[in-house]
């Protein structure tokens, strides 16, 4: 049966130009797919989108939809213009957790595609900025059907609402020579420990884990994660001097001075007379710059671990916050190390759940109560690496000074 296609002169213009067009793709679902249900849903979706383009407004509203046994994971969407576009009246998105590091076999992708063909609109995104595979567009009943289908072969929903959200990790150890941590292990251990908190939103607000294997932070952990795990090392960086000399010979000394030596933020580098590289490792802050320029010659050291930064988030409500260093260095080698990482996350989430206001991210809570109270709450001692500089304001009570100083020296002696 032929459907009556909406007239879409505005979004049609997005079919011109060399970049692949999402409109062309969506139209194929309307025009060529054998299932009439999909044709109709997509036709009305396109109609509503054209209406948005004409009027410069969005017409979706939220609601509550979930699958049996869960409280979150679905982004419910109900059309406000369903009279004109009835077939896409309900058009929910299903957030599905991707494998750590976003690796797939085509077989798996095809199996997911087949399920989505049965129950959804046929539109999908790899991935949303929170990290989920986003299956875009189905109604309430089919949401359950689709979930049951993919859950049977191993896929689970991600988080939506005030809960632990889907985590993200970089490709790291799977393909990157800069990796200082088993990103996938960190990712899965952390987020899967909180599966209940992913599926049953009961926290003050969202909580995100992200894992990057080095300071290049390809996953944008420091800016966008409440709990950022970033790989680093603490012994000497490895230098393959023969490779380095080859690079100097190829590019010239001027280039090396301009692009490597003088770009080191802590002036930890010098070029020796024989064109080898001198590294003052005590001054290196593992910023990754020189390693990025000559990845063939320079590598992270052997004593690898992670820095943990807490409290990154975007503007609402008090302004953008970067994660703050709460653990400057943590080894992740033995099973006890890994367990203690998970315990720390539990401690932090528990403290935040008890002390945050409604709708307050962890970073905002830290800002409100002060970093010191937060550290005391989670049982972590202060460290000079947590600040850019010590306090400037003289308005502070310091009657506990002597004990604090003693405790510091006691810790030092123990370490």
């Amino acid at each position, binding site marked *: 049966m032929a459907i009556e296609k909406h007239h879409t002169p505005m979004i049609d213009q997005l079919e011109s130009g060399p970049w692949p067009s999402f409109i062309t793709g969506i139209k194929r679902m309307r025009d060529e797919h054998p299932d009439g249900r999909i044709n109709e849903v997509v036709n009305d979706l396109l109609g509503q989108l054209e209406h948005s*383009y004409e009027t410069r407004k*969005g017409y979706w509203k939220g609601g509550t939809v979930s699958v049996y046994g869960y409280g979150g994971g679905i982004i419910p969407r109900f059309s406000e213009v369903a009279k004109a576009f009835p077939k896409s009246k309900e058009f929910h998105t299903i957030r599905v957790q991707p494998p750590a590091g976003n690796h*797939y076999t085509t077989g798996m992708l095809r199996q997911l595609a087949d399920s989505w063909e049965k129950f959804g609109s046929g539109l999908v995104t790899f991935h949303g*900025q929170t990290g989920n595979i986003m299956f875009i567009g189905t109604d309430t009943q089919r949401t359950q059907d689709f979930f049951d289908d993919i859950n049977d072969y191993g896929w689970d929903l991600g988080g939506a609402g005030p809960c632990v959200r889907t985590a993200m990790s970089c490709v790291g*150890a799977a393909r990157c020579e800069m990796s200082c941590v088993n990103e996938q292990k960190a990712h*899965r251990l952390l987020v899967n420990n909180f599966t209940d908190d992913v599926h049953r939103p009961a926290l003050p607000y969202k909580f995100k884990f992200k894992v990057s294997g080095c300071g290049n932070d390809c996953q944008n952990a420091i*800016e966008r994660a409440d709990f950022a795990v970033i790989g680093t090392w603490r012994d000497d960086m490895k230098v393959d001097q023969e490779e380095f000399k080859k690079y100097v010979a190829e590019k010239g000394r001027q280039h090396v001075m301009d692009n490597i030596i003088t770009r080191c933020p802590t002036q930890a580098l010098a070029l020796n007379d024989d064109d080898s590289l001198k590294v003052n490792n005590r001054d290196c802050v593992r910023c990754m710059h020189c390693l990025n320029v000559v990845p063939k010659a320079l590598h992270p050291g052997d004593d690898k671990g992670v820095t943990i930064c807490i409290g990154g988030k975007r503007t609402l409500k008090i302004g953008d916050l970067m994660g703050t260093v709460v653990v400057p260095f943590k080894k992740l080698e033995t099973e006890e190390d890994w367990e203690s990482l998970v315990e720390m996350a539990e401690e932090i989430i528990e403290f935040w759940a008890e002390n945050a206001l409604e709708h307050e991210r962890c970073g905002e809570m830290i800002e409100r109560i002060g970093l010191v109270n937060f550290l005391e709450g989670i049982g972590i001692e202060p460290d000079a690496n947590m600040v850019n500089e010590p306090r400037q304001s003289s308005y502070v009570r310091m009657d506990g000074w002597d004990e604090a100083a003693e405790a510091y020296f006691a810790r030092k002696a123990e370490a």
Partner: protein
Amino acid sequence: MMAKEMREPIETGCPDAFQYMHPVMRKNYGMWKFHEHPRPGVLRHVAYSGDEIWTVRAGTQRILDLYTLRKLCDIGDQFADGFVHFTIRSNIEYMVADGSKVDGLIKAIEDAGFIVGGTKNSVTMISHTQGWLHCDIPGTDASGVVKSMMDELIDEFRECNMPNRVHITTSCCQINCGGQGDIAINVQHTKPPKINHDLVGNICERPSVVARCPVAAIRPAMVNGKPSLEVDEKKCICCGACFPPCPPMQINDAEHTKLAIWVGGNHSNARGKPTFQKLVAAGIPNNPPRWPEATALVKRILKAYKEGARDWERVGEWVERIGWSRFFEEVELPFTKYHIDNWRGARKSFNASNHIRF
């Protein structure tokens, strides 16, 4: 019809990736030695074992339909042993262990209409959000803005001509899900919400809406004998935060919802510490279906960056070196009172020195 029997979900959480990982990557996990960039869009990683893996990266339309997804799978089956990987910016990557397969793979990707590139010093795919296609609060359409811009930036995606990598992001409301970027194009509301007082009492949990406002501009009020909310319009900063929990406080407006451009966001630690993006231009028309004004401005900024920056300088580092006053001259944008921060910690952004460039 029989009611479907419900079963408890199997709470598997995040799946183990090793089962889906290319065997050469699985074998050399954590044992990679170095990488090279043989040509734009292609990476060659070499492991300590001597194994190598070649990656070909391609840009897509991000919102994939089943035909496109299956086409991507066909290419993976034909050339890459059925393994793929996605980047954080929604590029797809195919990995092959044998370098001689790369040319054929590139040809297949391009013949199928996808774009090879996005590596090293390119302008890689714009990370973006949902927009009119799916979010409940968008002031614009992220997918459409991105498609229009990528049409014009396609050569910058295909080549690696920038001083360093460029990450562009778009966001369709001020919540800015899209993320920080070297260049970020975000919606900026310019008028306080229009309140439909008839609906507020029924739909909105008033105390939580009041609590949401970052400048305490919302008060409970009785309007026409019904419980509603009112906004002190002088205080309101038009952030839109009240709209998600209270849709009758309509913030989107066909005319007054504008776009703004921010530069210098960078999450990498390389050289400097990570930075947030800063406002450079606003009042840009939200002009579907192709948003030409926003794209023209982005291109202007990219051109000035490309001409002015040194190798390895990200957009924000370049601006910091030449100074913001020169940046505004170079890109021929006005500097106004709106560029001066008045939010928490604003004083940190004021110049307390006579470091001035003439």
